[in-house]
């Protein structure tokens, strides 16, 4: 893997830091006129998701990380692992709990997800921005109320709970924004 010096650090660059693959978020050059130059770098550990700020002497370098984002189809979960497939090569990868724990509630079989691979193994999965999921449980709807104000909790087929308008009934398919966890609209079938 190539190595990158501080002047090449830019948002999105993937590098190895203390044995973990990380993504550079922000890189600020600071230097007293007559003194040592530093780069203050905000960096996300791709294994833990933790963001930390780290200072480098300008000119230091880090090794690049073999990390890439690939669009893959979610297949199924066998209780222990989550399986994803490359749609062109049909190659499958297996993700452990750590890679998907935050987003399992948005994973619907057949949906296309962004899978982050490090040395070929999934370390993070990003669900589509919008998913369509069936309401499996919610209090009976109040007919005539279509205002959408107020709302009520609804449990979806994946186990996610979102607030929906009062008129929605069990069995309805709805569109949800996975970035905010908010109801967007009803989906006509």
């Amino acid at each position, binding site marked *: 893997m190539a190595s990158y010096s501080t002047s090449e650090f830019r948002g999105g660059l993937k590098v190895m830091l203390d044995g973990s693959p990380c993504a550079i978020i922000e890189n600020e*050059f600071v*230097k007293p*006129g007559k*003194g040592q130059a*530093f780069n203050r770098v905000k960096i996300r550990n791709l294994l833990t998701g933790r963001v930390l700020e780290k*200072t480098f*002497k*300008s000119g230091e370098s880090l090794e690049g990380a073999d990390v890439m984002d690939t669009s893959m189809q979610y297949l199924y979960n066998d209780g222990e692992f989550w399986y994803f497939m490359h749609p062109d090569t049909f190659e499958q990868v297996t993700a452990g709990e750590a890679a998907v724990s935050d987003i399992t509630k948005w994973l619907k079989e057949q949906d296309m997800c962004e899978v982050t691979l490090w040395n070929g193994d999934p370390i993070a999965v990003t669900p589509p921005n919008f998913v369509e999921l069936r309401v499996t449980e919610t209090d009976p709807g109040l007919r005539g109320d279509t205002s959408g104000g107020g709302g009520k909790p609804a449990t979806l087929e994946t186990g996610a709970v979102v607030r929906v308008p009062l008129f929605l009934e069990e069995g309805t398919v709805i569109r949800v924004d996975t970035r905010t966890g908010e109801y967007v609209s009803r989906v006509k079938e």
Partner: protein
Amino acid sequence: MSDDWRPRADLSVLHLRARMLARIRAFFAAANVLEVDTPTLSVAATTDPNIASFITSFHGPEGGARYLHTSPELPMKRLLAAGSGPIYQICKVFRDGEAGRRHNPEFTLLEWYRPGWDHHALMEEVEGLVRAAVGPDRDLPGAQYLSYREAFLDAVGVDPLSADARELRAIAVGLGIEPPREMQSVDGWLDLLMTHHVEAALPPFAFLYDYPASQAALARVRREDYPVAERFELYLDGVEIANGFHELVDAREQRARFRADNAHRRTSGLPEMPVDERFLAALEAGMPPSAGVAIGIDRLLLSAIAEDDIRRVVCFPNGSA
């Protein structure tokens, strides 16, 4: 169609820049300080290990390597030695490797010299100049003058003149700074604390003076309980705006510092720089005791409009030039 050709600075900022430069020239005209114009290209270059020069070459008489100046300091001092009296200059200077929110590889410097003055007298004039240049555009609080030592004691509770690298490292870590892996020098740690913590804790209009002797650059050194360099800096809103010296005029000491810089460059794997022999000859001939200062005009302009990215005040900054 792409908008990449467009200036990055607002046209109103360019008008303000022009007004500020006119005020500065009026200030020096009233003070009887002579405007001068020294070369951008030189066969010599700064030896400062923390400053990198651009290099090019000239094909013609006296041909060979030329360096773009990183400051007009040395030729201006040759003028002082020749009896110019007080002088100032507004020019572009060039520093390799420097780009970011507060840095552009080329920037505008205002530099001036006062024969017979010390750094305290010059700090007061700098305060006056800053008031004249940006006072009409922003409310400036009263200036506060504190020593480098006081600033460190106030902000991080350590004496920068006596602390060793291990103490400074512990303080940085205690402040939540994830420091670079390899940094041995006390000055490196002082610079780290300065840029990451002390600057932000300074009063909004602050002069720092009497720096550690190890950071003397071209300032004279005074012996007290610890030796201090008669050097000062101006900070506006925590941003370094100016650097000044009660100038070193001893040719032998100056030559020794250039040698030490180049020795430091050798051990750090940096290229050694050709020393300005004509400047040293001018010191030998006799330069009057003087104080001198350089002000970053782009940063001064930034402070006038309360912005914090230099790319807002330079029409075509790095990446668009």
